[in-house]
C-alpha cells in the first residue's frame, strides 16, 4: 500500500486542484464536517495552548487539502485523515520542543488536583483524562487518542503503520499509564 500523506509540493497540489477541484472541495468539506471535533481533540492533545492548537489544526487541514487528490481508496477516508493528522502532529511537536520532555510535562497551568473528597463532575473527570493523555509518551498517546476516537485496532495499525498486535501491546501499556496518571491527580 502506498499513500502520500504529507503536504508535498505545492506545485503538485495546484496541478491536481485544477483537475478535480469541485469533487476535492466537496470531499474535503465533508471530512472536516464529520471529523472536526476529533481533529480539534487530536490537535489539543499535542499542543499546550489554544493558539497552538488552532495553528496545528490549520496545518492538518492544509495537509489534507494537498494530499486528498492522491487518495486512491486503499483505506477509509477517515483512516487517511487521521494518518495525515498524526503526521502533522509529529511535525508540529518536532518543531516545538524536545519530544522526550513530553513524558514528564504538565500541560495545563491550573491546579490539576481537585479535593480528594469531592465528587468529581463529568467535566472534571474529562479534564483529568485530557491531562493524563498529555502526559503519555508519544507512542502511547498516538494509540490512545485514536482508540478514544473509536478507531479499531486495524484502523489504528493502518494509521500508524504498525501491526495490529503492536497496537494491542501499546494500547495495553497506554491504558495502564493513563490509569496511573489519572489516579495521580486524585
Amino acid at each position, binding site marked *: *500500500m*502506498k499513500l*502520500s*500523506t*504529507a503536504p*508535498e*509540493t*505545492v*506545485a503538485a497540489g*495546484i496541478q491536481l*486542484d485544477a483537475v478535480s477541484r469541485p469533487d476535492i472541495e466537496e470531499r*474535503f*468539506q465533508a471530512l*472536516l464536517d464529520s471529523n*472536526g*471535533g*476529533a*481533529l*480539534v*481533540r487530536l*490537535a*489539543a492533545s499535542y499542543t499546550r495552548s*489554544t493558539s497552538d*492548537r*488552532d495553528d496545528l*489544526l*490549520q496545518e492538518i*487541514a*492544509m495537509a489534507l*487539502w494537498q494530499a486528498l487528490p492522491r487518495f486512491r481508496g486503499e483505506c477509509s477516508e477517515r483512516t487517511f485523515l487521521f494518518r495525515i493528522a*498524526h*503526521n502533522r502532529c*509529529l*511535525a508540529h*511537536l*518536532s*518543531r516545538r*520542543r*524536545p519530544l*522526550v520532555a513530553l513524558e514528564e510535562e504538565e500541560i495545563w497551568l491550573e491546579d490539576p488536583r481537585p479535593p480528594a473528597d469531592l465528587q468529581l463532575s*463529568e*467535566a472534571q*473527570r*474529562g*479534564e483529568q*483524562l*485530557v491531562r493524563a*493523555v498529555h502526559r503519555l509518551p*508519544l*507512542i502511547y498517546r*498516538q494509540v490512545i487518542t485514536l*482508540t*478514544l*476516537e473509536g478507531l479499531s485496532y486495524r484502523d489504528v495499525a493502518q494509521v*500508524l*503503520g*504498525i501491526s495490529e498486535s503492536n497496537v494491542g501491546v*501499546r494500547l495495553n501499556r497506554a*491504558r495502564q499509564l*493513563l490509569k496511573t496518571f489519572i489516579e495521580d491527580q486524585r
Partner: protein
Amino acid sequence: MNPHIEMEAWRLLWRAQSDGRAAADLRERVARETRRKKVVLIWPVIVTIAIGGGTAWRANVSAHFEDVLLAMETWAFIAVIWTGALWLERGTWRPLGDTTAAFVDLSIRRCQSALAGVRFAGVVYVVQLVIILLWQFRYAPSGPALILSSWPVVVLGWLGVPGFAAFGVWFSGRKRAELRHLLDLRRQLREQ
C-alpha cells in the same frame, strides 16, 4: 474495572471534550493559505525572469561587452541557484508517508536538506558578492572609497552580509533543534 468498560467510559469523557467552533472556519483558512503558497511558489520564477530577463534585454540593446558579460554571469548564477536548490530538494518532494516511521525519516531528510540549503546559500551569496566587488573595481569609473559606498556594495555587503548571517544562524539553530527532536523520535520508534 473491566478494561472494555473503562475504555468506553474514557471514550465518552474524551468525546465530550471538544470545541467544535475551532474547526468551523478551517476551509476559509486553507483557501487563504493556498493562495499564499501559490504566491510563494511563483515568486522565485518572477525574480528569475525579472533579473535574468533584465540583464539579457540590456545586453541585447546596448551590445557592450561588459553588458553581455554581466548577462552571462547572471544566467550562470541563476542556473547554479536553480540546480543547487533542485538538487537539495531531491528526495523530499515525494514522501513515503505510509507510516509514522516513514514520515519521520522524510522529515529528517527535509531538515538535513534545509541545513545544507543554508550552507549552499551562504556560499552562493559570498561568491556573488565577490563578483560584484570585482566587477565594480574593474568597470566602475571611481576609486575604492566610492565603490565601497556604492549602493550594490552597501545593500549586498554592509547590510546584506550581517543580515544574511544573522538569519542563517537563527534558521540553522531552529532546524538543528528540529533535527535533534526528530532523531530522538526515530530512536523512540525503533526501540518499540
